[in-house]
Every structure is written in structure tokens, then in C-alpha cells.
């Protein structure tokens, strides 16, 4: 299993969180669990770092949150907004383009020795 450091993930965390929430509303702990499950436990991220991201995305209008009662305590659940869905589509497209380009570079033929 390849452990990916938090600093590496940080730049992509917005997209990852939006992607996890595209499947349906989740609370913070469930978002982290889903990230771990989907990544095959590859992400080495302090769990507390997810909340500033969730709060910021909500402030930017990409997420909406609602409080409810669960297991005798208050729980905040996040939902992807319409703007969040649009942002996710855009970020997925950008990531795919970047990933394809990196793949071409890494998998490309050796430098041709042109004479």
C-alpha cells in the first residue's frame, strides 16, 4: 500500500471532498472514512484537517450543511450544492487533463536521438 502524505493530498483535497459528497450527504467523520475506503487507506491525513476544508467549501457555496441529532449528540451533515456539482465536473476535467499529460510524459519513449 502506498501511503500518500497529507501535504501531497492538500492541493487536491477540495476535489476529493466534493467527489465523496457527490454520492450523497455525509457528516465529517463519514467523509474521512469514505476517503480512506476509496483510496484503499493510502491517504495519511490528520482527520482534523478535513473541517477547515468543509467550512471553506461551504463558505464558497459549494457545500451546504444542516444540523441534526444522531446517537444523542449534534451532527452536522454536508451536501453538495449545484455550484459544488459544477465545480466538481470542472475539477475532474482539469485533473483528467493533468493526469493524461503526466502519464504521457512518464510513459513516453526515451529521448529520440535525432541526428
Amino acid at each position, binding site marked *: 500500500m502506498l501511503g500518500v502524505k497529507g501535504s501531497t493530498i492538500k492541493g487536491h483535497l477540495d476535489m476529493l471532498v466534493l467527489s465523496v459528497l457527490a454520492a450523497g450527504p455525509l*457528516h*465529517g*467523520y*463519514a467523509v*474521512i*472514512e469514505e476517503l480512506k475506503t476509496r483510496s484503499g487507506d493510502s491517504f495519511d491525513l*490528520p*482527520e*482534523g*484537517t478535513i*473541517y*477547515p476544508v468543509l*467550512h*471553506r467549501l461551504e463558505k464558497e457555496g459549494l457545500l451546504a450543511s444542516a*444540523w441534526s441529532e*444522531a*446517537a444523542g*449528540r*449534534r*451532527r*452536522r451533515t454536508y451536501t453538495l450544492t449545484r455550484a459544488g456539482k459544477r465545480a466538481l465536473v470542472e475539477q475532474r476535467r482539469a485533473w483528467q487533463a493533468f493526469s493524461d499529460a503526466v502519464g504521457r510524459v512518464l510513459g513516453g519513449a526515451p529521448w529520440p536521438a535525432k541526428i
Partner: protein
Amino acid sequence: MAGQDLILGYLAQVRAVGGFRRDADAIVAELEDHLRSGVERRMHDGLDEVTAQKESLDVIGEAGDVARELCRCNGKGVALPSRLSRAGGIGALIAAALIMVSPLPLYAWVHVWLAGSSEVTAYWVYALVLVASSMASLIALLGTLARAGAGASSGAVAVTGMAGFGVVLTALFTWGSLETLALICLPFGLALARLARITPLPSGAWLQVAAWPVALAVFAALNKLTGLGPADEYGDHPWAWFWGGAVYAVLWSIGQIALGRLLLAERMVNTVAPTLVA
């Protein structure tokens, strides 16, 4: 360890740092739900409660770091009490003390002016007190912006620049200070509006924002409408200027005192001592 709740201890540490935010209760509730969910899952996997709590705390991150990240504003400054915000508090109190005495030399200068004397000592004393007070207010503004987590954002640089320009103009044209002081009042309005989103402000703090328009209105009313006292060679009424300046001094000093007390009352948080709640 039975009966000890490590999670409550952790949340107390978060609150010690993040408690300066308006929404501290919601943040703590959200973190508690996160930690308890983790404990429940680990206990379901077969761990005892204390071990489950320890594991949950290990993976969430150090309480101070988590709270600081939650207090970070748009990835820029951290909206927490700091040395700069405390310096701002001291600056505000100095500014209040200086502006409170400013009506005295202004009063003396109006007498000299109306007597037609060329003696300018009172005028320069007034100018000196007003500029010194404005400079102290500039430090208070920097402290307010720091406390509000504005950091070195373009907005913070813009309002600081505007206030600095206001101090320079006030120094150069003290006789027109009822106009130039707007450049100091307005930045404070913006800085206080930002700070109010993070922590509750004493209502008195807003008086410094009202100081300029109210003082200008008093001056305009006494100068143009009622024509208070004798007029000078330009047709203006120096006593109107005095009362405008006095009203400004009173409102500004009340506002600066309220702000200074707020910034100084908050405990600066550098380290958070670990606590265990039984």
C-alpha cells in the same frame, strides 16, 4: 482509567484556542461528533473504550493545530489573539487618552485665532496631539486586522494604506482634520466589521466609526445653520470647529477604549496545556 474521558479533555484544549470564534460551540460539537463516531467504530471493532479514545485522538491531529486551522481565514491570517493584537489594544488606549485631551489646545487656539493673534503654539500642540493620537490609532488598526485574521491580505493592506494616508493628511492639514479623519474612520469601520464576524464586539467600539460623520454634522450645523460665535475672515465660525473636534474626540475615545479593552482582555494562546477530564 475507567470513568476518564480523554475526548472531553481534547475538546477543552480546542475550546481554549478556538473559543475566540463566534461559532466555537458548533466547532466543538462537530469535533465531538467526529471523535465519538471514531470511538464507536473502534469499540465495534473490539477495542476497549480508553484505547478507542486514544486511537481516535491520535488520528485527528493536535488540538492546538486543529483549532488554529479552524481559525484561519481563507488560508491567510489566523483570527486569534496575538502580540500584534495586544499591541493594537495598547495603541487604542493611548490614542483614546491623547484624543481626549485634544479639545484643550483646540479651545486655546480658537481663542487665539479669534483675537487675531499670530501666536500659533496652541495650534501646533493641537496638531501634535491629533497626529500622535492618529498614529496610535494606526497601531490599533493593525492589531484589529491581525485579530480579525486579515493577515497580509490585499484588503488589509488597502485599509492600512488608507488610514496611513489619513494620518499624513491630518498632519499636513490639521485645520481640515474634520475632513481628513474620514480616512481613519472608514478603515476602522471595515476592520471592525470583519472582527465582528469572528468575535462579539462591545457596542461602544462602533462609536469610533460614527465619530467622523457625527462630528462633521455638528460642525456643519453650527457653522452654516446657526453660525455659532463670531466668524473669522473666511466667514467660518471657529467655535463650530471646536465643537466638531470635541464631539469627534469624545466619540473616538469611547470607541478606542472599548476596542482597546477587548483586544487586551483576550488571553494570547501560544501553547495549550494537555488536560484530562475525569
